[in-house]
């Protein structure tokens, strides 16, 4: 202890302390975060009851006790289907933390089991899009070239050329798709969450949806040109040119200009 006490005024002491504090916080957080349960099967009567109870406890304040919606608080969920519930709850958009321009994605607070139960109960209220089967969202079954053309025509005006996201009016935004799972992307297309229009199977066929998923999946391979700089285009490139490029060159100029005198 004496050795530690002797060094407590060392200039690196705050850095070491900070690193230790972060480590402890991280370990505790990891220990207390619930892990997600694995379960998938057809809904039973128990599931529907559990889903109904979960809904009443967590969603009914805004959406009403029977999901009929409440004026000024939340829309009716009768007929939105299981896909809408799965999309909103599994991406953490619902339950809403606070009223804002748009519900942001955040870590989900329910387990997969709970989400499945709520989705099953909402789906039982009226017909709506179902959660897609794994093969419907399998990127390897899609054609990336066709997906590129479909994405450019239907998606890029809001989500950007490669799905890096974009701004909408009054603080709303089209989110970055690079971390969205294929199922989430599919569900977004069939349910049209928030500002997004619905792309039903008439406008974009299931095969075309798979093509779009394949195109977005191909973006995860990174750029053949090196670091992507966020794939946000010339503004990022300009910042790199000025700060890194010209910064280095001016640094070199200072060195050269100073050396002989």
């Amino acid at each position, binding site marked *: 202890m004496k050795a530690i006490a002797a060094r407590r005024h060392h200039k690196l002491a705050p850095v070491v302390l900070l690193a230790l504090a972060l480590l402890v916080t991280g370990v505790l957080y990891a220990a207390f975060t619930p892990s997600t349960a694995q379960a998938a099967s057809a809904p039973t009567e128990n599931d529907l009851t559990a889903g109904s109870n979960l809904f009443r406890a967590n969603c009914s304040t805004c959406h009403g006790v029977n999901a009929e919606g409440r004026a000024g608080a939340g829309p009716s969920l009768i007929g939105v289907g299981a896909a809408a519930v799965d999309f909103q709850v599994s991406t953490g958009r619902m339950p809403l933390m606070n009223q804002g*321009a748009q519900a942001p994605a955040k870590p989900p607070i329910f387990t997969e089991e709970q989400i499945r139960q709520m989705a099953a109960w909402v789906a039982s209220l009226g017909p709506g899009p179902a959660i897609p089967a794994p093969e419907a969202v399998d990127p390897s079954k899609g054609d*990336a*070239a066709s*997906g*590129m*053309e479909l994405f*450019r*025509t239907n998606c*890029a*005006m*809001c*989500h*950007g*050329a*490669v799905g*890096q*996201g*974009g*701004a*909408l*009016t*009054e*603080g709303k*935004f*089209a989110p970055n798709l690079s971390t969205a799972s294929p199922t989430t992307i599919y569900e977004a297309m069939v349910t049209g969450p928030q500002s997004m229009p619905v792309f039903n199977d008439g406008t974009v066929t299931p095969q075309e949806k798979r093509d779009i998923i394949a*195109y977005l999946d*191909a973006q995860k391979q990174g*750029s*053949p*040109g*090196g*670091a*992507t*700089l966020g*794939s*946000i*285009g*010339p*503004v990022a*490139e*300009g*910042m*790199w*040119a*000025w700060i*890194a*490029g*010209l910064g*280095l*060159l*001016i640094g*070199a*100029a*200072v060195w*050269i*200009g*100073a*050396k*002989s*005198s």
Partner: protein
Amino acid sequence: MSTNASAPKLAAPVDILDQRTGVATFIKAFARKVFPDHWSFLLGEIALFSFIILLLTGTFLTLFFVPSSDLVTYTGPLAAMNGVEMSRAFASTLHLSFEVTGGLLMRQIHHWAALIFMAAIVTHMMRVFFTGAFRKPREINWVIGFTLMILGLAAGFSGYSLPDDVLSGNGLRITDGVVKSIPIIGSYLSYFIFGGEFPGTHIIPRLFTVHILLVPGLILALVGLHLFLVVLHKHTQYPGGGRTERNVVGYPIFPVYMAKQAGYFLIIFGVLALMGATLTINPVWNYGPYDPSPVSAGAQPDWYMLFLEGALRLTPGFLEVVIGGFTLSLNVLIPAVVVPGILFTTLALYPFVESWATGDKREHHLADRPRNAPVRTATGVSVLTAFMVLILAGSNDLIATHFHMSINAITWTFRILLFVLPVVTFMVTKRIALGLQRKDRELVLHGHESGKIVRFDTGEYIEVHQPLDEQERWIRVQHDPRRPIPLLPEHNERGVRRRGYRRDALRTRVSEFFYADRVEPVTPAEVAAAQAHGEHDALPAAGHAMAELTASKDGSSAG
């Protein structure tokens, strides 16, 4: 100059060349050109050397690029484009990026070099502006440099549009809109440029000619002229002891600066190659082949055109008016034609405006310290502020998504800031410059604070100041005082109205704007007076000092 061992070997062929061309005289004179040592004199070199790299990499690209709008179906290594219909220009860009060895590296170095080229031009221009290096006899060279900047914009824009991807096509579509907004001739001009309705099939080959022949040719010619004038006028230098309007203190090209410049070229090539190898730039495979229908979010031009994009984004749409069935698109005309028109005209003519306003017709070879020209410095900062606001406005969607803000609020903020911030930065910069001049005065008159307090036997305390050394003092007192031009009376002694009075009155007003607020440089008499009184004494204001000094030669209390 000492002769080295290899000189005799080279002597014979050099002599052959010299007897036939007389090149030795030129080389001898050129080799003795003196470079003052300061990093800011190397900013122009960044532009020059990145231009050379642009020529080298650009030549490589022309070997593979096909400037044609003919439609082809892509078959190649890029899965995301397989079977997609595209122009030959886009297909050849993909071909040279993915199939030609080193092609993507060359393309990326070329594009990074273009961004650095423009950034270096702007930075070099700022250096010349803020140090007053555009003053006589260099006004013409300023205009040439300005023209080079415009040509750089033209080169950048025409090259940016060549790959025929969605992003550059969007840029061309905006250009088309801007051209069409020009009253009366707009539509004719657009048809002339595109050879028919946008986009047509002519624009890519035409831009190719502009990009690889016309603009680089003009740039090369003007760079030659620019450098010739630099050699003719000789370098400016920063003020300091031993540096006058009649000499240049530094090192000669041969051997010192030749080595430095060659080394710097290699550093620049290295940095650009590093960027080209590791950082993706203009990934056209992300944007896809051009098709006029899709416009993706986050569509922006390269940084040097971003201020125009910003001006367009800020201008409200209601400015479009219809007069007698004809549409006048002021919402496009003002931001895309009038705003850059004002900005560029001001930049080009600034040296002439300043010399007219100050009546200064002398030659200047000593660079100004920016603080000694407060209004010029403030004007420069104010223009840069407006430029910066427009650049940020051009990135408003990225600011909105990255900082979770409302794009509408951002746009309104920038609309207000565009008018308010340049005025604020003008006033603040001017005050800072004047304050720094006052600090210089204080320092020259009183010396450095030493922190030593001395108590005399009588009980009096003084702080001992340490006088400045010769070099320090020289830098702070060498500049000429600048005062507004006095206005001669309107009527002469016979009561007849003087010709040209109104022009003189305007000139005096402009001159007052420049120099009404000023801090006079310290005169030798003031230094003498300050030292006669001991370094701790305060001195009266500039005007009085000399009068009082002559009145009280004995050095008794003047302050």
